[in-house]
């Protein structure tokens, strides 16, 4: 009997030691489940912040030269090296990585091409998750609206770059612009969508921005968030690209008249373009020391005193012909040094290289920190330039002169208002635009939107070997059109034809 009990007991032990159900239920500690994220507006706000952080963080899309690819900031630098105003003495990052020599846009497997495409789509998709789920979250309507408005702005911002890279230029005289652009992914369920026309993408961008503007969010915790002024600024930028000058005027003027982001003082102008405290920063990244990345940050590639091998050995230079057009009394003339010496251009250590026309526009935020700084995504100076250019191109020269002077008078205290008209006025505005927005990602897009050729032969100090002797590209050439990345084509059966 005893034995039987013993065996029964043993058998029971074997068969009944099955564990409780919870034994097999585990969860990660460095991730949050989707369901938890959208329980509240507080949590959902974290998705927005994730996108903002992603915009300045070294990419993980590719492992190739990722240090020179700090999110959107890296793309802005990359496309500036596709112009003629920002350049360097050697074929290193932004030229050998495929931008300066126009290899990456025309190579469907190129790491840089993949990175440009994916960076914006990842922003779009995270924004889509917000837009799909935010209504069900608990929180005030005001918070929901704010988050929604920011998500719309982010989505429009991302598409505004994609359409310019992967479609040929928008031509206002050829509406509708039926040339193919990129797939339009608008909900979290959208997948493997076909390429749609440039016109359709712009229609969507405008629709998103109009929604964001209608929600009229004017408060924000800090400048990492995109408020209504950013949405309007972007609306102006997009209108300018579409040669829709009346709207460019309307929205740029609204931002300027709003008065929230006045132009910087001359002192501030020389403080290194690295601080959200600067009055004309409308929208920027604000990484902390911990979020900074010694080598994979915007300032590690462009700040004259960033202590990185790249900056020590390869100072960034301005088109000397452009420099020569800056008035001697203009504070912007101080952003570059035609003949740098130890006296007029001090550098942190002796291992930094000096080059004629090198820049000191961008500086690291804190001395001692190798590369930290707040990356500007939008400055109000651009609004003045949009306004002036739109007026000028719209035939309203007098208004254009005044709009330009509003900016120039701040930069050059002894400036007098331009009396140029027509093409000469447009040219003057464009010179100002190139000088003012140097290094912030505009020149290539300007060439493309205005159907201009790239002509580096006109740049006296351009180093031809730094771009494998790619010195001139005719207007409208296929090199201005990025090829759709091979990874998209491979995995998206509906994508449609590759660019020619």
């Amino acid at each position: 009997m005893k034995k039987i009990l013993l065996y029964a007991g043993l058998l029971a032990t074997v068969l009944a030691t099955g564990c409780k159900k919870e034994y097999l239920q585990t969860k990660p500690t460095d991730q949050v489940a989707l369901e938890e994220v959208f329980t509240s507006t507080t949590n959902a706000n974290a998705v927005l912040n994730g996108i903002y952080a992603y915009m300045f963080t070294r990419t993980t899309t590719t492992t190739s030269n990722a240090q020179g690819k700090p999110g959107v900031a890296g793309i802005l630098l990359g496309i500036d090296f596709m112009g003629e105003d920002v350049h360097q003495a050697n074929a290193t990052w932004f030229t050998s990585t495929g931008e300066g020599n126009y290899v990456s846009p025309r190579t469907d497997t190129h790491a840089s091409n993949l990175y440009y495409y994916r960076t914006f789509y990842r922003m779009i998709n995270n924004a889509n998750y917000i837009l799909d789920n935010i209504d069900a979250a608990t929180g005030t309507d005001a918070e929901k609206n704010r988050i929604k408005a920011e998500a719309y702005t982010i989505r429009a911002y991302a598409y505004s770059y994609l359409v310019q890279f992967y479609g040929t230029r928008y031509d206002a005289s050829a509406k509708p612009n039926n040339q193919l652009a990129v797939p339009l992914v608008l909900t979290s369920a959208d997948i493997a969508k076909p390429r749609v026309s440039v016109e359709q993408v712009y229609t969507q961008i405008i629709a998103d921005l109009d929604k964001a503007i209608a929600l009229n969010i004017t408060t924000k915790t800090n400048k990492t968030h995109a408020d209504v002024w950013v949405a309007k600024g972007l609306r102006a930028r997009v209108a300018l690209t579409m040669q829709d000058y009346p709207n460019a005027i309307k929205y740029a003027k609204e931002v300027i008249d709003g008065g929230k982001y006045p132009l910087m003082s001359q002192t501030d102008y020389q403080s290194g373009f690295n601080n959200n405290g600067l009055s004309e920063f409308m929208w920027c990244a604000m990484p902390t020391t911990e979020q900074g990345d010694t080598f994979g940050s915007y300032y590690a590639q462009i700040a004259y005193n960033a202590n990185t091998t790249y900056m020590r050995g390869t100072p960034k230079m301005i088109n000397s012909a452009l420099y020569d057009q800056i008035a001697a009394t203009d504070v912007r003339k101080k952003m570059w040094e035609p003949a740098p010496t130890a006296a007029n251009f001090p550098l942190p250590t002796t291992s930094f290289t000096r080059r004629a026309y090198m820049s000191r526009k961008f500086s690291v935020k804190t001395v001692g920190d190798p590369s930290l700084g707040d990356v500007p995504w939008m400055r109000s100076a651009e609004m003045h330039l949009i306004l002036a250019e739109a007026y000028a191109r719209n035939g309203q020269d007098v208004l254009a002169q005044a709009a330009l002077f509003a900016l120039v008078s701040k930069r050059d205290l002894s400036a007098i208002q331009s009396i140029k008209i027509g093409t000469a006025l447009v040219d003057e505005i464009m010179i100002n635009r190139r000088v003012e927005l140097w290094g912030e990602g505009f020149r290539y897009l300007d060439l493309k939107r205005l159907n201009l050729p790239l002509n580096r032969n006109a740049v006296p100090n351009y180093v031809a070997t730094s771009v494998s002797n790619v010195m001139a590209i005719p207007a409208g050439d296929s090199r201005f059109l990025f090829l759709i990345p091979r990874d998209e084509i491979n995995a998206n059966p509906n994508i449609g034809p590759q660019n020619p």
Partner: protein
Amino acid sequence: MKKLLQSLFVLMLVAFGAMAQERTINGTVTSTEDNIPLPGVSVKALGAQAVTVTGGDGRFTIKVSSAVTAIQFSYIGFTTKTINLTSSNTINVGLTPDAKTLTDVVVVAYGTQKKEAITGSVSNITSKDLEKRTVTNLTAALQGSAPGISVVASNGQPGNSAGIRIRGFGSYSSSNSPLIVLDGAVYDGSIGDINQNDIESLSVLKDASSSALYGSRGANGVVIITTKKGRDTNPTINVNFNQGWSTRGIPEYDRLNTLEYYPAVWQAIKNNLMYSATTPLAEAAASAKASTDVATNLVYNPFNVPANQLVGTDGKLNPNASLMYDDFDWYKPLQRTGNRTDANISTSGRTDKTDYFVSLGYLNDKGFLLKSDFQRFNARVNVNTKLRPWLKTGLNLSGAMSDANIASDASTGNGSSFVNAFSFARGIGPIYPVHAFDASGNPIMNTVTGAQWYDYGIHPGAINRPAGASPGRNVVYETMLNDNAYRRSLISARSFVEVKFLKDFTFTPTISMDLRNNNTDQFWNPLVGDGAGTNGYKFQSNNTIRSYTFNQLLSYDKTLGLHHISVLAGHENYSYNYRTFQADRTNLVAQGNTELANFVSASSSYGRADNDKIESFLSKASYSYDNRYFLDASLRRDGSSRFSPDQRWGTFFSVGGSWALNKESFLKNASWIDDLRIKASYGQVGNNALLDGNGNSRYYGDRAFFDLGSNSNTEGGVLLASIATPDLSWEKQNTFNTGVSFSFFGKRLYGEVDFYRKNVNDLIFSVPQPLSAAVTSVYRNIGSMYNQGLEIQVAGDIVRTQDFTWNLLTNWTFFKNKITKLPDETPTIISGTKKREAGHGIYDYWLRQYAGVDPSDGAALYIPADGTTAANIRTVNGVQYVTNQSFAKFDYSGTAIPDLSGSFTNSFSYKGLSLSVLINYQIGGKAYDGVYQGLMSTGSFGGALHKDILNSWTQSNTSATIPRADYGNSTNINATSNRWLIDASYWNIRNINLSYNLPKEWLKTIDVPSARIFVTGENLYLHSKRKGLNPTESFDGVNGNTYPQSRTISVGVNLSL
């Protein structure tokens, strides 16, 4: 009756009398095969009670009465021998291995089994096989050990584990690595922490019927490692010492030397100016400009003529140029003769109730590269005791402490990093010196230390090297100043209680635990490299793995006449917990201290914990009749925490049978047949080992997650990382295995032939999503694939005489892999250089199609993709091509999987001397030589170039088969295409071992029972199709800048006391 009684009485008297006259017989029992002493041989006086066994040295002493006329020696696996007693009291006897007695016991899932009863496919590697190998990591010893096991030694870093695949590829996006079981439980330590000298045997379970008892984790095969136990009643001491020296085992690629370099670069600049510049120059102008540009682009000039006069407009090096210094070999200061010391001592013994094995081990393996080494201390105690006739218990406890300095290379995720010595030293142009020289060629000295500065871009008088020559960096200096180390500590315990009851039942609860701590330390110095900008950088991580397996097994074992039945049932819990913490700081305070406290600024910190759990119910039954027919079946049910509650439970099973033909009456008379059996098995096993894109384990396969840590200023941020896949479940493998094993002519010829087909269903694919999608890959159970193979092991004694034996053992593996199904929505999956599609193999190359060189300008020509616009077409001799790779056609281009792989082992033994030679080889398959592609590319100035560049197209060599070198268009000219594929066939002298058992007579004088000395060489020679190429680097055929394998020669001594 009376007479009978009388006779009995007389007999008894005689017997008593005989007893009174005892004599003592002693001697040594050895194996005739290799003259090694045999411990544990049963020695029995015939017709008497006296019995003893031999000790660890093979010696025995037995007291017998004078009536005893003969002594019998018997030992498992050897023919029993009876020796008639003579007047001599010494009997030295040699036992011959018995081919007919196949009673070897093999460790299998949850127990042991007689070899003859195995219905599946199990390869067994014994301590004797391992003795010949001097490997720091056990995995390397598996290469060439048995058919169906392929091993890639991706990396020569001391202590590194090699990749193992058993019978092909069971997975695409999940792990393909076999399950490692140590002494009965899944092992979560590092394989590198196991002391090779502690190992009794390795069983490799290859088919479903062998591994089904491991259920959801058995699909990739199982390697069961069993450590030693005390076996001999005579306590034995084993001392083992081994000293080795290592050098680089695979040569460097042929690269241009200093004199060839400048002219080659000149030509590539000239080509850029003539063909890819936006304003092309005529030849004369291009030549002239190239002569200037080559100097400005390469920056450095180690010659005694001005840089712009170095290369003439004829493209030749100025005849007056000679070198001012010669300091261009970056390998020289980084390499050394590696040093490997391995010392072990173990003691073991057995009484009738208790057995014990205690070992201590020390290993120090310094690699041939500076700052790459591995040092390990091992200790193990294995004690088992019988407390009661029905109660046994035991504990096998081991500890290991490992310290290593690691070299950064491709296998540690640093393929093209500046701190990767191999990528740096291989890739830097041959005109850039290691040390600093001024423009006149004088060394630049550090006035403080008096030593010459390294050339690193920050030293006095520094100039920056061009982008392709790692400006601002110096791998030699950085390797010396930086630290990249890990420290591992392991405690591994296996304990059991075994209760026997009701005669045939046994109940065994066991608890096994592994406690592992990993410490990673990285220090970047403040002078040069990544730490220079931040005045030094320190990263430290600490992670702990705690895992346990708790199981309760109930078994029943019964023999009824010729019938034998055994049944096993059990329950098991497995729990794995991982916890990590890491932090980094910058700005070093005081030199010489690299601990975190000595840094000023905190940069970041991070921590997380993961859990992985499995609960299982398992059972197995086997039946045999007359040792002629064997049947077995097993069933296991597993629940895994990695899947959603609806998908987490799975059932796995196997059935198998074997038939010993030679025991049938119709073959009984065929005396030449020692053994002949056929077997077949079928079963299903699973694979739950999900991996993420970086090859790390994924523990949460079912939900949509956002990654934490994407913070923006003071606000927390998250980013979408995965989408929900609630339907994700196990991969299932259905394996059919059949085989025959044989032994003929007294084991003159023996072997095994196995055929298998593994059908993998619900194959998990990380399906690439469009880049425009929310995530770029989604894990789905979508495909099916099969692996089919024929494995042959044939061996025989080619010569077998009294003193000399020559044995040849050959392994042959023919293997085929094919995908049979992919889902309708993604009928093809393209990633990297491969495309997956039904009807093709998992490692079939899918590459752009290279078509040769345009003789007019040396452009690389590719076959156009369908629908390429006319603007992108170039017609050469009437054939249409493209020169922009983006418009080139993709096509299948062969496979990375070889047609045949195998090994030969020749073993010779002559008296106490034995020699074995192991050769591995592979025939067929293609390698994608990415390293060669890199050396042929002219993407940025300053990089090293392969010698083949000298044969590329030039204006005077228009019939070349290598396209022009061109700094403006390398992306297209050297695009990833089938041009870089090369036959992956190779042969490799993997191991040579020469050993000598010192004669007893010599040893007697120093009172040592047995001693063996040996010389071993590992990885002595590799022959591949291109110098520098190691086709065994990866399974998918793609190579990188990895630490090459080393060639090690060692000498050693092994004493038994």
